[in-house]
């Protein structure tokens, strides 16, 4: 199979669907003439022209809202948030209009809209330019929220997203644009709501998404050296959420560590822990541990930034706490 970068796989999905479907249009800052600040849309304006690759002023609320209006009237817009950090400015449009229009119009209106862009940190962009917003948007019914981690998934999920009749928050792992992987040519989709078992294992479930998946795979390799077989689960889809795959894994391994770059409180990892204790209470041999970003705005200095994100060591420590914990029951400790 051809090998492509995450960036190129993403671009291929958009370009191919634009060739098939002239209702697909792109909007965003510097996506056209400039080529896209992350070069995801580079060259598309040459192929599809400025009516379909629309460079906008710096007005996230305005152009996101305009894209919703387009989606309500026959187009399938893809909005680029230059980075998701700017989406707070468009939060009202995303949460109050895109997510709810179908409902408060009594089903008269659809919003087939994709909002995409890089999410997450790791390159010293500091406090205002470093966020992981899965839980933030995942909270709202009416939205779909996905976070693909591989070139294969990013293409297949983008095609699903464009064809989805509902608004999709498409959180790309900004740090992974340059990573390579096998990507099928042509039309294929990866459905939402299905987690991926990225590595099978029997001893502990290691759960994450986005760039954490690679980190977890590295950790699993290290653990394997000590004879510990970690099962790595890539959530892929945050809303809808695949509780089944997670619970099935924990039923097998009896232990879980969830890793995320975002802050701990009221987050994806909170939800994963809550679900596991709800649905696999009896099979759980130790509390679900969470490894999250430090509870601070992202710092600039490289050493501080590294300390602010989950590290291999932190994950391994958590795994060991969870693994070597003596399984006790509430009955015996009381």
């Amino acid at each position, binding site marked *: 199979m051809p090998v492509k970068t995450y960036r190129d796989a993403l671009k291929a999905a958009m370009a191919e669907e634009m060739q098939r479907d002239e209702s697909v*249009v792109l909007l965003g800052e510097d996506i056209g003439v400039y080529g896209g600040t992350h070069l995801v849309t580079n060259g598309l304006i040459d192929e599809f022209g400025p009516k379909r690759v629309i460079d906008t002023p710096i007005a996230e609320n305005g152009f996101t809202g305009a894209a919703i209006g387009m989606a309500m009237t026959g187009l399938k817009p893809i909005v680029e948030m230059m980075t998701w950090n700017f989406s707070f400015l468009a939060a009202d449009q995303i949460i109050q209009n895109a997510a709810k229009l179908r409902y408060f119009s*009594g089903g008269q209106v659809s919003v087939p809209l994709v909002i995409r862009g890089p999410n997450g940190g790791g390159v010293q962009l500091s406090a205002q330019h470093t966020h992981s917003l899965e839980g933030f948007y995942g909270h709202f019914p009416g939205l779909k929220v996905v976070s693909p981690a591989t070139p294969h998934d990013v293409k297949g999920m983008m095609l699903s997203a464009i064809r989805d009749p509902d608004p999709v928050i498409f959180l790309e792992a900004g740090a992974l644009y340059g990573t390579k992987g096998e990507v099928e040519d042509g039309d294929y989709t990866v459905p939402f709501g299905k987690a991926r078992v990225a590595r099978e294992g029997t001893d502990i479930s290691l759960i994450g998404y986005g760039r954490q998946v690679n980190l977890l795979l590295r950790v699993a390799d290290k653990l394997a050296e000590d004879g510990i077989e970690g099962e790595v689960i890539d959530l892929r889809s945050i809303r809808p959420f695949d509780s089944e795959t997670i619970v099935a894994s924990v039923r097998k391994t009896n232990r879980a560590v969830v890793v995320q770059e975002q802050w701990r409180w009221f987050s994806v990892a909170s939800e994963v822990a809550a679900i596991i204790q709800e649905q696999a209470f009896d099979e759980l041999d130790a509390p679900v541990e969470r490894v999250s970003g430090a509870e601070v705005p992202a710092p600039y200095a490289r050493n501080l930034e590294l300390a602010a994100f989950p590290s291999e060591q932190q994950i391994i420590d958590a795994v060991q706490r969870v693994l070597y914990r003596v399984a006790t029951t509430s009955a015996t400790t009381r």
Partner: protein
Amino acid sequence: MATTERQGRKSRSTSARKAADRAKANGKEAGQPPRVKNDALLDLYRKMVEVRLFEDAAQRGFRTGKIGGYLHVYSGQEAVATGFLHEYREGDRIITAYRDHAHALLLGSEPKAVMAELYGKGTGLVKGKGGSMHLFDVANGFMGGYGIVGGHIPLGVGMAYSLAYRKTGGIVQLFLGDGAIHNGAFHEAANLAGLWGRDGLNPTLFVIENNQYGMGTSVERSTAMTDLGSKFDSYGIEHEKVDGMDLEAVLDCAHRAAERVRESGKPFAVEALTYRLVPHGAADFLEKYRTKEEIREWRQRDPIGLLERTLLERDAADEDALKAIRETAKARSDEAVQFADESPDPDLTELTTDVYAGEMHVPAAGSGIGE
């Protein structure tokens, strides 16, 4: 502060006088022939009366606890929507904020379904899910009904892009309040409209329903530059003012504006000066921000009263004919109330429908253009 309030009041009545002056300078007095024939005018009178009586009934419904949530009625402003929506053509799209009953009714929504919506019934225009602020009737071009001030403006501008991109020939009429102008959503969207309009990709007709207050805050207390139409200069969008109490003036202005937008694919803005003869909404019982005198003064310019005088002067109708119209309208609104009252609540299964199109519905590739 007593002083602030009094200052507020003083400037308000000055503004009322200015409005009357503007009205005099208007097309009609300047001797232009009426654009709309007597018959048609009488028909529009009927519509305005129907809207007014519908709103009266809605207010009663609120007071008696049949209607919950927020309720914002349009009484006093009827000439604006009636005049502009007279320019509605199939394929056009209409969008407004939460003061939206008139727009739905004038576009042809069934009064019964609208009232049932206010009553939160399953027979409501949007199945009882949206209520007063979220009327939608897509079949009639009505794209809603929005509760966040300013939030619908970008949507309307995007719709206009879509209509032009798809070469439908349609335009968007985008209604907004004076209070919405100061919101960032207005600024960003109007700038996009001006920009896209340069390439003929934005047939948006902005209609500012300037009723002079955003809730309790007058235009003068919202901005140091109170000429709202001129704010469109910043976006390269041409604009005009009209006396929003004078239906004929509105009809005339709306026609020229709509034609211009339709032909050019460029946006255009009209500031219609009008007045809310009723409180802002349900919770606005004190009305500390305006005087009784001011309201009385504006009642003299009630658009329905003004139109009645015109119709009588022109012999387009006599008192009896007008009375008959009012009675028929009353009967229609009574019917709507009765229908709403007798309709069943939404089925409880409706709670979870319309959140998504389906559980995980992914249609085939290239499903093409179309709504």
